[in-house]
């Protein structure tokens, strides 16, 4: 290596370090906060590595029986909203791609532009009339606002790139459209479905605005539960940070494990829910 190349190499690593450190330092600090007792969290100058580690913060959060309720709520809401979105969205993406009905994507764009709160006002009234407030149903339905456009958008893009030849051959052999979809198109589309699934799960799991309006005491999802901890528990940072980390941990894990799919999905659709 010439000196010039070595300098270039050092420069590159230095820039990598600079651009990645805000993310790394933030999450390390989050972990540090969550593992410290109050004494250390209130210390100035701040302590990064505490002498005693407060595993208790995590134990406290996990042990409260409310937490289990909220975790279950989040699982049910995100799980149902994602599953329903896949059931209606994957065939829709297929149909739209095959009909080349690109104008219909305008609806998805409108959904993308609309602030989440605008859905909340009419749907809140609707759920009130139907007497559904107090159950998880309103949240499952309104999370479809997030998940359905993501799934349709990604599936349109995906089905447009899958080859038509196999499908045409199957049609000529006398298969019905449904059979072609079920046995030819769907198996090829598995990677696309995985991308749609991952992004729908993440953006539904993270959603906050729908929960603060529609969730009651028993029907809170995790982000809403954590938000309520802020208002009641301002001073104990340790357990708060631990709760925050537990809430976002599944998503972070998914991000690192499935970063390839996530990057593909985000750059293709550039969708974000809410």
């Amino acid at each position, binding site marked *: 290596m010439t000196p010039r190349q070595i300098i270039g190499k050092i420069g*590159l690593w230095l*820039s*990598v370090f600079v*651009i990645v450190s805000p*993310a790394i330092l*933030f999450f390390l600090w989050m972990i540090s906060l969550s593992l410290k007792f109050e004494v250390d969290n209130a210390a*100035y100058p*701040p302590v990064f590595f505490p002498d005693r580690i407060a595993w208790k913060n995590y134990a406290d959060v996990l042990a409260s029986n409310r937490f289990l309720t909220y975790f279950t709520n989040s699982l049910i809401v995100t799980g149902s909203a994602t599953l*329903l979105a896949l*059931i*209606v969205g994957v*065939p*829709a993406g*297929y*149909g*739209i791609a095959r*009909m*080349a009905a*690109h104008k219909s994507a305008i609806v998805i764009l*409108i959904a993308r532009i*609309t*602030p*989440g*709160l*605008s*859905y909340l*006002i*009419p749907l809140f009234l609707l759920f009130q009339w139907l007497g559904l407030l107090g159950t998880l149903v309103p949240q499952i*339905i*309104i999370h*479809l*606002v997030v998940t*359905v456009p993501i799934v349709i958008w990604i599936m*349109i893009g995906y089905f447009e790139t899958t080859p038509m030849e196999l499908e045409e051959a199957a049609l000529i052999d006398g298969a019905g*459209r449904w059979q072609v979809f079920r046995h030819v198109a769907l198996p090829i589309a598995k990677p696309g479905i995985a991308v749609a699934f991952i992004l729908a799960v*993440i953006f539904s799991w*993270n959603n*906050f*605005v729908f929960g*603060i309006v529609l969730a009651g005491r028993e029907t809170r999802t*995790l*982000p*809403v539960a954590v*938000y309520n901890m*802020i208002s009641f528990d301002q001073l104990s940072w340790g357990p708060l*940070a631990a709760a*925050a980390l537990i*809430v*976002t941990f599944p*998503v972070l894990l998914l*991000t690192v494990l499935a*970063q390839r799919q*996530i*990057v593909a999905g*985000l*750059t*293709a659709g*550039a969708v*974000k829910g*809410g």
Partner: protein
Amino acid sequence: MSALTQSTPAAAQSDAAPEKELRPPSYWPFVVPALVVVLAIIIFPWVFTIWMSLNEWKVGSPTTFVGFSNYLRLTSDPRFLEAVGHTLVYTVLSVALPLILGTLSAVVFHQNFSGRGFLRGVFIMPMMATPVAIALVWTMMFHPQLGVLNYLLSLVGIPAQLWVFHPATVIPSLVLVETWQWTPLVMLIVLGGLAAIPTEPYESAQIDGASFWQVFRFITLPLIMPFLFIAGMIRMIDAVKSFDIIFAITQGGPGSASETINIYLYSVAFTYYDLGYGSAIAVVFFLLIVLLAAVMLYARQRMLWTEIASGA
């Protein structure tokens, strides 16, 4: 790169996408279930919102049709006008900073280095993390006495700031969080653009002895412009609508110093339960976003024409 990233610049330039031969409408059954869902959760709320905005509609009292008076009320509502101002400042900063930093990061991530995939995964963690959870940690970091940010500032000799606890610094502080969170998205989009650039211009530039900056300014930048534009558009739409971070950190405070349209909309609709007025805000808010998008499209067209006029 497909869908939005591909179709938008194409649509901006011409509508001449090769039309596939029309298929018989037998694909409709695939679309119908989604159509029902979209009608129920997207179209219906929209129609109903417009109808509500024409009524005096408060929870617990009878509704009366009032025509456009909710909209007229907006024009003389100082809190709304102030919120529009906050939203615009917040948006401009939250588009510009991630665009600059995201482009620089993309140039770095475009290089080859070991662990690139993993580090890219780490880099995008801020935008995938649960916003409320990270807002909570930022709130602790902003704490004037115990927060780590003031400690870091003190290390380099900068006096302690009040961050989100002072009207003058609250919006820049929130923009800091928004920039930290969304720079990765810009990076990803631009990175996709860089991957699509042919290598020939770089080779000839190297032969001509162009500097790194010249290469970036005269080759890379023009070629990734379409991607920057899309990133800017998406960033604008998200920044205008930003809710979770602002709501969880300041709830629009101190006072109303960080109250954006979306936060004000929340107060009107779900604190005061003034649903008619809230609906009018929602409609105007949506139109404002469409207007901003149109302005950006127009600016982009103008730029293209000037490029063609001066280049050819």
